[in-house]
């Protein structure tokens, strides 16, 4: 996979998730970060740090991105969310505008 096609998402604890740009763009916020006309640091390095999102949530978010892509292309499965992380996940979703 080419580096230009991927993006590195870093959680509060420093865990790095390397995922497809296409998947990351599901989030409107990340899309803006990566496509904004000015050259922000994120656009230049291809990595985004989220100091307010912990690893568990970020992992779930990445799973959601891929699931969402599949769902959009017609594969209608359920996305399972553990009840204990629901609240935090929703806040992150609001933040990421997904």
């Amino acid at each position, binding site marked *: 996979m080419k580096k230009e096609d991927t993006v590195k998402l870093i959680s509060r604890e420093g865990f790095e998730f390397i995922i497809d740009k296409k998947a990351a763009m599901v989030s*409107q*916020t990340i899309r*803006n*970060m990566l496509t*904004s*006309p*000015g*050259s*922000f*640091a*994120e*656009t*230049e390095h291809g990595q*985004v*740090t*989220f*100091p*307010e999102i912990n690893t568990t949530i970020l992992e779930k978010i990445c799973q959601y991105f891929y699931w969402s892509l599949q769902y959009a292309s017609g594969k209608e499965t359920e996305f399972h969310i553990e009840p204990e992380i629901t*609240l935090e996940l929703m806040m992150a979703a609001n*933040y990421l*505008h997904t």
Partner: protein
Amino acid sequence: MSAPKKKNFQIEAFKHRVVVDPKYAEKTWKILEHAIHEIYNHNASGLSFEELYRNAYNMVLHKFGEKLYSGLVSTMTAHLKEIAKHIESTQGGLFLEELNRIWAEHNKALQMIRDILMYMDRTFIPSTHKTPVHELGLNLWRDNIIHSSKIHKRLQDTLLELVQRERTGEVINRGLMRNVIQMLMDLGSSVYQEDFEKPFLDVSADFYRLESQQYIECCDCGDYLKKAEKRLMEEIERVSHYLDTKSEPKLTNVVEKQMIESHMHRLVHMENSGLVNMIVNDKYEDLGRMYNLLRRVSTGLALIRDVMTSHIREIGKQLVTDPEKLKDPVDFVQRLLDEKDKHDKIISLAFNNDKTFQNALNSSFEFFINLNPRSPEFISLFVDDKLRKGLKGVTEEDVEIILDKVMMLFRYLQEKDVFEKYYKQHLAKRLLSGKTVSDDAERSLIVKLKTECGYQFTSKLEGMFTDMKTSQDTMQGFHAAVGADLAEGPSLTVQVLTTGSWPTQSVNTCNLPSEILGVCDRFKTYYLGTHTGRRLSWQTNMGTADLKATFGKGQKHELNVSTYQMCILMLFNKSDRMSYKEIEQATEIPASDLKRCLQSLACVKGKNVLRKEPMSKDIAEDDAFYFNDKFSSKFYKVKIGTVVAQKESEPEKQETRQRVEEDRKPQIEAAIVRIMKSRRVLDHNNIVAEVTKQLQSRFLPNPVVIKKRIESLIEREFLERDKTDRKLYRYLA
């Protein structure tokens, strides 16, 4: 969980942790403000989008949205004020370029700011009904840059000057122009309209007013139109290159108004080059241009149409009233057709086959053709000429085309019944003398007349054809029955014509030579033997005869003559000299016909089988005639035509006219009775109107004549006047 009592659980709304630090907002804003400055200074690469976004997010979340928004407004305003100063200070020609460059930068910066403040755009702004960030940026740009007192006027002037320069032929930077105009459009349609379009249209109007004034003074109509068309194209092109497409109708409207509408009367009426000149000289291209340009203006086409109509009427009037041109009816009609063709071509080539123009053309023709009361006669003569000789060697399609054209002229005629009268006469002559060239063409024309005017118009004409056909059969029967007995004497061909269908006149039968009389009687007995209850009378004025004659030196000729001429020539079998009086007594041919026959027998060079004393062109009552022994001709067959008056002479014309009037009377009466039968009661004016309407496909009845017919009907007790209102008529069943 196993509490025995019922407990009401209440779920508290989730509360964000309250930020204790009162300076939190101030601090966060400082970071954002700094970022905005950096963005404007192109230093964004060091900034973390996530951090800024998170800060803005938190500010909005912690109810500092108002602070964030107002901070944004004041920071951006400050930046724009500085930019305005910078732009104001740029020198001359670079002004637009600089403006365009900074505009592009501002747009980029604005987008970045919008992106990092997206959360505010999404939640805070809709709930507080504020202007979204992007729009806010544009508004601030508009108020601080475009509407800044120093830039506003300068921008307008620069733009207008550039357009002016392009109009005078210079090349300008259209890309830059398009970008700047696009900026104005982006700032809202009102900005574009108020700050650019309106002054632009005013300037354009002034420019074209001046230019058209110059052009019209020094150019002829064709050149002017070319220039106007070029200008119009240029403006349309201009719009497509760098203006808003919505400006096109407004801009072309300005050009149309200044260059076309205000000068069109002068243009169309221009001497030596205006519309009339173009029509006369068949300048299809110029005419097409004029049509296309004036079509853009509301009254333009009406103007062209009016001028064209009056021109055609003028020409037509000259054509139909010029006594010189009336001498030859065939030529006269041909001229009409040529004129029609010419204008048809103009309308189809230059005027886009415009229906209203065709109508105008038709009404003009209708107008002037009916100016000449002899038009029906001439048109019939034209057909006669074509069907007698003109159609030889012409293909069937061409025949159809000619006939169609004739029908078109026929349609213009108001007095169609007069045409019918003449046509009947001419057709009868053609049929009886066997001179018609093509039976198909004859029938085709009849069919056309039938579709045009209905069954009754042509029933008699068709009857004539039927008579011709039955006569052939009768003759075959006659020859089969008595042919053997008559082998010795002259052979006879008879055409039995139905009275009424043919334009026969009751003429006194002339005295036929005894040889002929015998055969005629045989036929009469034969015919009346097969058809009882009929009467036969001989129309000696319409027949023809072939005579075999031997002249002085023994040379033999076959003479093709009319019945009258035959009667005269037969007299010379008995004596070589006869005086006019003797001939008249012996034949009892009416004087005018007799003179005509003698003239063609004695006075036409090369065909003079008789000799006249004294030698002169005209026949006098005391002339004497001799059999011309010395007659010679190259041909065995000699055709001796009667000196026929092709056109009707004055008295004949009067007579025909009278007969037409006579024929109209029963038609008018029939129309009145038809109308009154359904209406029962009607006043005078309405009757006249209805009658005119019913009969106009055949002729235009004269109101005075209608009145006379009504009176006659009252006399015969078909109608009565109302006892109280004398203007009302009642129908008496």
